[in-house]
Each structure stands twice: as structure tokens, then as C-alpha cells.
């Protein structure tokens, strides 16, 4: 047979018919009773039918395949239009009306027109439709009856044909469901009805028998609509036994549901009919006012706030009551949850409800959400309108919305988009909320990834707190309540620290985290905290990378700040204690700290002895110098020492030794402070002048000094002679300090301090030497290993 081109409506219609006829579900229809009935219903002379059968090739095949069936249907339409039966006419005839089949077919057509597309269609369909609207529909029915030739014949059944072919395209979708319903109805025992094809689908107003049934239907509708629908879908089925009498049995539950839905639907049957008569094509998915009102009521039962959301779980429960398969419910959800937030707004809920209703009436679910079901933010406005429109018209029962609603709804669609966008914001916010309630994969807040860091960081700052506080307190003490002041040296430190090691940066980062975490409530600026923390860390770990890394995971040890800060003040003890402590574990790093103190007087003395004095000499010099230093008062003496040192340094700077000693100092711990002291001399003096407090004087300088020391430590190079020189210089420097005060007490104190300083220097030197020893031992071991590796070969 030639290829057949069918319009969409025709396609649907034909497929529905085919399905209907395909009782055996074999995809090919034998000339069984259904087909014959169908053809007979076409009200064509039998010879025409025979001719059609021949043309379509069924005679040849002995059965109707799908294509044959379609061709036959098309030919029937051709014949019914009065056109000669020709094969060519299959495709040549344009705008061919759908084949009309009396009774059964008529119903289909009626359905087509009425059904699905719009309540309008339905209403126009004549009697079928106006289920809920009943009253209005009755009138319409009368009107339709006129239109529908079949009415009288179809009486029990829906007014099928009435719809003109024009409407048929609209009808086609309905027909399919009709057909299906039809089948179901058959099972329901409405064999008769079947041909009528329950317009079923949702809006089978068609069904509504015309006058009487309509009335009763109306009664039913009005009565049942809210209750049955509200009773949950299950009860819908039960609700309409009476209706069966009036309505085609087909309707039974679905119909009843439909009717109830219809009742809910807006009532503009008149409008609908008008539309239908005018051939207006409406979206079958539109929600009538009644329906919408019903949906809104249902929404309220779940979520009183019309602007609120129904969470997914509640919606799931609700729609599960409809007894639709989960898969279909899932699909409905996908269609209706427009913003994909796991919750339903009023619009979404109405759309979902509508889809469920449609599905219950065996309407196929669309692949995409129909436009009319798109969530509209003007929903509430529509619902406000619903009560106005709903009452009178009668429930045309068509699913089509009331025109008034429709018109605003359609443009509202356009308008809703921006609203949707705005609403999406709400929805999005809600979605975060709701999705958090969802147990599913969502990682709305990607805080999780950050958690480990924060988890790591948080403990750190907690621990850091005390140190920070401590540091800050120290700062305060030292600087005297000036926040900025402590930060300045601190500020100065981090850059220096960062220069030293990469760890500084990493540590800074970590400390920053911790600092941020900690400093959130801290009065200090976050800058200070991380800086201080970094500084403290640096100090504590003085450039040891492993320690720096450990800082990230483990609370940093309390920063040696105190001892760093007290370089020369009476807190010398602290210095010493700190010096003693660090020298043990950390020979290189911490050693830097103690030197901070001693160098000051030492440099002044270095200018004197200089050059390669051995430690012995230095010591001797030191001893000699100590009395010189004794008169110097501790604090003021420091100051004076600074000055003296500065004074001594200045001339000594010229000396070559200084440069020499400087590198020497660099190499040694003692050198560190010396050099730093030298360079910091200016600063120290300035600082000293600035700070009247004893301790405070030391505070700023020690820090820079410390820094230098650290850098120098890193730059350290093992050189015993260098160290000895340093010691010598240190020791030598001591006696060069002039005594400003001649008090014995002060002198004694000064000497004590000097001695202590010397001790620290020596201790540092010792540690350095030990370090060198270790290195050498390691080298030796490595060499021995190499030797052993080579030895076997030598054996061979």
C-alpha cells in the first residue's frame, strides 16, 4: 500500500482505534468482530466497506495490519466525506475529517472534540462533558444535541460525534484514552458503552449522558466532586455507583473522579462550548477553576500556607494514595517539580494533582510539562478568580480552565517566568532547606570539603588562643597597651619569617585559618592573630620544617615569646631559661633566642678584642669586662649598654673585625645576636629611647634581633674558629662597655648578667659543636656505608 501520511490527530485516533480493535494484542487485527463493528459503525454501505478492505490490502493479507487498518480508516473517512474511494485519495485529500463511526466511533469523536483538549471541547461535546457543570451542560447538551446526530442513538453514551471534524484533531487525544477506557469499561461490563468509548479520560463530561444523566451526573458531580476527590483517590472509585446508572459504567471510578474533578474544574461550560463550537483549541491540560480550587483546598490540607511548600515526603504520601504506580508518580513528580527543589509550591502541586487526575483517567502523561501546568506565580490570583467564575457556569467538567482564568493564565505564563525567577530564589532558599531534609546526595553546602580544614584549623586556634592571648598579653605588657605597637614588630616578623621558609607561608595559612577561626570573636584584627600565630609558630619552631608542618595538625607549642621579649630586662632569667630549654632540643633555632640578650653588651666589647681571640682570651676578657659591666644597671644598664654598644659599635663598625666578626657571628649563634644587635643597634636605640620601661625596651629589639638570629642560624656554618672568635668577641665586648653607674649593686647585677650571657653563649656554642659532631658522625657513617657497599665488589 502506498505510504500513508496522517496528521497527528489522525494518527492518534487511528492508533487508538487500532488498539481498541487489537483485542488479541497481536499488533494485527484480524477481521474480528471489533473491526467489523467499527466498519459498520462507519455507516457506510457494505460494498464500500468491502472496497475499502480490498484497497487497504487486508483482503490480501487476510487480516488488518496496522498500516492496513490505518488505510482503511482513512478510506472510511474519505468515503464518509463523500469522496470516491481511491487509493490516491488517501494522501491527496486534505483536511479529511476523521472517520466517524457511529456509536462507538462517535463517541470517540465526541471524545476527541470534547475531551482532552479542553473542557470546552468537552462541554461542546455535548453532554459528555458537562458533568459537573451539569446544569450548564444540559443546556449545552441540548445545543450539542442539535449538533450531534448521534445523540439520540447514543443516548446512554456520550454524545459522540457532535463535534465536527474540525474538532476532531482535538478529539484524537481523547479518543485514545477513550478507547482505553473503553476497554476497561468493557471489562467493567459496559460492553455497550465501549463503543461509546468512554470519553473517559478525565474530563469525560461526554459521558454524562445527556439530559438525565447529566442532571444526575451533575448532582453527582456537585455532590461527589469534592468529597470523592478529597477522599483520596481510592474512594473515588467507590463513590459513584449511582453514577454508573447515569454515566456509562465506564466512568465508574475514573469517570467519577473525572466528574469530581470536573466539578472542581471551572464551570465555564458555556465558555467551553463556545470555544468548542468556535473550534477553539485549548490545551487539554489546562486546569479549570473548579479543579484549581479543589487542588488549592487539597494543598491547604497539607500545607496551610498557600505560599509555602509541600515537602517531597508529604507529597509522596499524598500522591501515593492515588494508587498510581510509583513509576508514574515519579514521572509526574519530575514534570511538576519545576524548580527541582524537592518540594511543591501551590502551582507545582496543582500541576501534579492535575497530572495524577489525568493519569487516573488513563491519559498518557506528557513528556514535558504542558504549558498550562507550568507553575504560575499568579496562582493565587487565579484562585481568587475561581470562586467568582466557578459557581454559575456549571461545570462543564472540561478540564479546560475557565476562560477568564485561562486568559489571565496564559499571559500569566509569560509573566510568571520572571516571577518564577524571583520565586526561584525563594524556592532555592527553600530548596536548600528542603534538600537538607532530603537524605539524598545533595551537597548543597560544600562545607564538607572545608570541614576537614576547619576541623583541623579549629582545634589549632583553640590551642592557639592561649598562646595568642599570651602573646597579645605579652605584647601589651611590652608595648604598653598599644595594640598597634606589638603588631608592628610582629608585622615585621612575618615577612622575615616568610622569607626564611616556605613553611612560613603554609603555616601562615594554617594559622590564618586558625586565626580566622579563633579571631572571629577576637577583638584583635585577624591580621594580628595569624601574624602573631605565625610568629609564635615561627619562633617556636624557628624554621624547622617538620615542626612547621606539625603545627598544622598539632597545637603549636607555646611560643617562646616571653623569653624573646625579655632580652635584657630583668627577665633575663626567662631568657636564660628559654635559652636553656631550646638549646637542648633545638640547637640551631632556639639558640638564636638567647643570643639576643647577650650580644648587646658583647658587641660593644667585640670592638675591643676582635680578631680571633680565642675563647680563653675572650673569657678572660669577659671576666675582666664583667666588672666593667657590673656597674651598669640592668635595665638602664641595658639602655646604656645599647648606647655604649652603639657607640662602641659605631667605631667598631669601621673596624675590619666587625665585618669579619659579623660573618663569624653569623656562623655562630653568638654572631647572630651580635650582628643583629649591630644592625639593630639603631633600632634598639631608637626603641630604647622610645620605651622607658625596662622590659619594653627589650621587647622590640629582641624581636628583630631574634629574627636576625634565626636567619643567621640558618646561615650558620660550622666553623670552630669562627665560633671561638665570636665568643672572644662577645667576651671582649663586655669590658668595653663603660659603666654609667658605679653602684655596686648594679655592677654586681650587670656582671651576673654578663656571666649569664656568656654562659648562654657558651652553651650555644656547645650545642653547635655538638651539632657539628653529629653531622660529622653522619658523614662518617655514610662513608662507611659506601665503603661497605664497595667492599663486596672488591672481594669479588
Amino acid at each position: 500500500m502506498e505510504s500513508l501520511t496522517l496528521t497527528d490527530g489522525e494518527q492518534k485516533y487511528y492508533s487508538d482505534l487500532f488498539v481498541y480493535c487489537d483485542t488479541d494484542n497481536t499488533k494485527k487485527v484480524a477481521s474480528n468482530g471489533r473491526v467489523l463493528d467499527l466498519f459498520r459503525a462507519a455507516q457506510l454501505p457494505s460494498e464500500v466497506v468491502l472496497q475499502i478492505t480490498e484497497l487497504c490490502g487486508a483482503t490480501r493479507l487476510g487480516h488488518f495490519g496496522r498500516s492496513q487498518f490505518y488505510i482503511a480508516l482513512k478510506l472510511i473517512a474519505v468515503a464518509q466525506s463523500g469522496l470516491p474511494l481511491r487509493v490516491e485519495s488517501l494522501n491527496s485529500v486534505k483536511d479529511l475529517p476523521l472517520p466517524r463511526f457511529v456509536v462507538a466511533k462517535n463517541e470517540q469523536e465526541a471524545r476527541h472534540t470534547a475531551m482532552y483538549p479542553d473542557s470546552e471541547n468537552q462541554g461542546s461535546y455535548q453532554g459528555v462533558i458537562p458533568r459537573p457543570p451539569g446544569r450548564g451542560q444540559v443546556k449545552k447538551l441540548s445545543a450539542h444535541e442539535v449538533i450531534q446526530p448521534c445523540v439520540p442513538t447514543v443516548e446512554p453514551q456520550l454524545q459522540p460525534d457532535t463535534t465536527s471534524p474540525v474538532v476532531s484533531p482535538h478529539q484524537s487525544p481523547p479518543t485514545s484514552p477513550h478507547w482505553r477506557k473503553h476497554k476497561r469499561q468493557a471489562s467493567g461490563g459496559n460492553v455497550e458503552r465501549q463503543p461509546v468509548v468512554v470519553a473517559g479520560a478525565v474530563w469525560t463530561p461526554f459521558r454524562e449522558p445527556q439530559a438525565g444523566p447529566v442532571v444526575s451526573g451533575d448532582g453527582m458531580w456537585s455532590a461527589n466532586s469534592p468529597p470523592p476527590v478529597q477522599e483520596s483517590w481510592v474512594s473515588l472509585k467507590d463513590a459513584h455507583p449511582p453514577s454508573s446508572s447515569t454515566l456509562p459504567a465506564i466512568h465508574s471510578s475514573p469517570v467519577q473522579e473525572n466528574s469530581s474533578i470536573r466539578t472542581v474544574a471551572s464551570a465555564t461550560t458555556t465558555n467551553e462550548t463556545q470555544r468548542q463550537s468556535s473550534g477553539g483549541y485549548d490545551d487539554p491540560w489546562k486546569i479549570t477553576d473548579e479543579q484549581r480550587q479543589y487542588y488549592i483546598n487539597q494543598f491547604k490540607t497539607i500545607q496551610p500556607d498557600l505560599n509555602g511548600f509541600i515537602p517531597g515526603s508529604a507529597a509522596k504520601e499524598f500522591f501515593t494514595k492515588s494508587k498510581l504506580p510509583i513509576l508514574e508518580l515519579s514521572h509526574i513528580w519530575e514534570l511538576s517539580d519545576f524548580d527541582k527543589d524537592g518540594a511543591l509550591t501551590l502551582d507545582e502541586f496543582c500541576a501534579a494533582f492535575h497530572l495524577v487526575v489525568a493519569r487516573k483517567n488513563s491519559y498518557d502523561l506528557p513528556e514535558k510539562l504542558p504549558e498550562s501546568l507550568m507553575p504560575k506565580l499568579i496562582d493565587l490570583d487565579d484562585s481568587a478568580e475561581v470562586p467568582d467564575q466557578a459557581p454559575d457556569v456549571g461545570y462543564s467538567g472540561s478540564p479546560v480552565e475557565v476562560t477568564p482564568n485561562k486568559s489571565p493564565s496564559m499571559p500569566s505564563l509569560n509573566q510568571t517566568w520572571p516571577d518564577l525567577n524571583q520565586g526561584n530564589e525563594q524556592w532555592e532558599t527553600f530548596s536548600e532547606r528542603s534538600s537538607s531534609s532530603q537524605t539524598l546526595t545533595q551537597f548543597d553546602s560544600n562545607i564538607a570539603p572545608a570541614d576537614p580544614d576547619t576541623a583541623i584549623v579549629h582545634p589549632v586556634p583553640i590551642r592557639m588562643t592561649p598562646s595568642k592571648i599570651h602573646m597579645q598579653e605579652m605584647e601589651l605588657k611590652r608595648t604598653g597597651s598599644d595594640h598597634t605597637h606589638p603588631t608592628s614588630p610582629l608585622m615585621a616578623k612575618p615577612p622575615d619569617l616568610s622569607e626564611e621558609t616556605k613553611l612560613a607561608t603554609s603555616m601562615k595559612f594554617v594559622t590564618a585559618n586558625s586565626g580566622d577561626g579563633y579571631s572571629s570573636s577576637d577583638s584583635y584584627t585577624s591580621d594580628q592573630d595569624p601574624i602573631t600565630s605565625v610568629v609564635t609558630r615561627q619562633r617556636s619552631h624557628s624554621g624547622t620544617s617538620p615542626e612547621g608542618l606539625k603545627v598544622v595538625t598539632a597545637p603549636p607549642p607555646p611560643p617562646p615569646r616571653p623569653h624573646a621579649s625579655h632580652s635584657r630586662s630583668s627577665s633575663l632569667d626567662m631568657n636564660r631559661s628559654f635559652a636553656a630549654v631550646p638549646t637542648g632540643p633545638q640547637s640551631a633555632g632556639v639558640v638564636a633566642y638567647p643570643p639576643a640578650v647577650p650580644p648587646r653588651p658583647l658587641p660593644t666589647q667585640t670592638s675591643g678584642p676582635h680578631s680571633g681571640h680565642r675563647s680563653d682570651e675572650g673569657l678572660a676578657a669577659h671576666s675582666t669586662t664583667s666588672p666593667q659591666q657590673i656597674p651598669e644597671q640592668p635595665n638602664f644598664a641595658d639602655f646604656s649598654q645599647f648606647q655604649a654598644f652603639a657607640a662602641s659599635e659605631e667605631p667598631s663598625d669601621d673596624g675590619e673585625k666587625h665585618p669579619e666578626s659579623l660573618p663569624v657571628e653569623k656562623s655562630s649563634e653568638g654572631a647572630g645576636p651580635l650582628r643583629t644587635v649591630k644592625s639593630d643597634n639603631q633600632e634598639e636605640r631608637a626603641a630604647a629611647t622610645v620605651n622607658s620601661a625596662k622590659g619594653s625596651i627589650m621587647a622590640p629589639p629582641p624581636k628583630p634581633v631574634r629574627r636576625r638570629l634565626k636567619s643567621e642560624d640558618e646561615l650558620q656554618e660550622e666553623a670552630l674558629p669562627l665560633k671561638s672568635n665570636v665568643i672572644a668577641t662577645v667576651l671582649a665586648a663586655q669590658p668595653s662597655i663603660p659603666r654609667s653607674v658605679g653602684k655596686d649593686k648594679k655592677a654586681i647585677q650587670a656582671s651576673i648578667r654578663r656571666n649569664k650571657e656568656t654562659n648562654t653563649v657558651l652553651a650555644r656554642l656547645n650545642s653547635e659543636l655538638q651539632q657539628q659532631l653529629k653531622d660529622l658522625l653522619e658523614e662518617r657513617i655514610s662513608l662507611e656505608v659506601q665503603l661497605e657497599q664497595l667492599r663486596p665488589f672488591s672481594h669479588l
Partner: protein
Amino acid sequence: MAVCIAVIAKENYPLYIRSVPIQNELKFHYTVHTSLDVVEEKISAVGKAMADQRELYLGLLYPTEDYKVYGCVTNSKVKFVIVADSSNTSLRDNEIRSMFRKLHNSFTDVMCNPFYNPGDTIQSKAFDSMVSAMMVQAS
């Protein structure tokens, strides 16, 4: 050019697997299955920093003579595997990433559906259509 797209659950059973050439599907199923080993290996390698951008695009898992296998893991250990045909111009990395992103978005939409029980096979039509679109355009 994705010829096969698979979504594997945390317990390493497939939630969704679809191949474009309907015939010879078994081969792609097998490929996806073997690629899971590579995925696990990559996960454990990256697992050091657990929060290290868990939604990880694993990239090319391994190439064979005909096709390349790409993988992506989500925070919830759901793995996406794309088998791409390498006969055509090899897809750029960005394209693969965008495909994974789309997959992930559709997957999250599926998850949002309260009627979907995690662990069920994905039967969402929207997901299907998205995957089909990806495969059609690719091949």
C-alpha cells in the same frame, strides 16, 4: 561520542547503564565493570585529603584501541562512567567535564524526586532523555 554512559552506585552496582549501539551492549557493560577498578584506585589515591574536591573528575581512566573511558565520582561515591568512542575527533577535556556536569545535575534531579528510592535503578524519563541527547550528539 559517548557510546555508553553508566551510573554506578556506591556499592558498585549499576543504577543506570545505557549504550548507544544497542547491539554489543555486553562489551560496554564489561568495560564499565572493569573501569570500576581504575576508579577505585584513583579514589583511594586522592582520598588522602578527603575533602579534596570530592566531586572529582577522574579523567581518562584508561584508553583502549577503540574507545576511552572517563570517570567522575561524586561526594556520595556515586560514579559516572562515560565510554567514548575515539574514532572521531577525541573529545576535549572540557567537553567531557561538561558531560559529567550535566549527568550530575540530572542525577541530582532524579534524587530530588521523593518517589525515587536511592538504590533503585534510575527510570526517570528526563534522565533518559538527557542521556540520549548526550549520546546522540556524541555519536
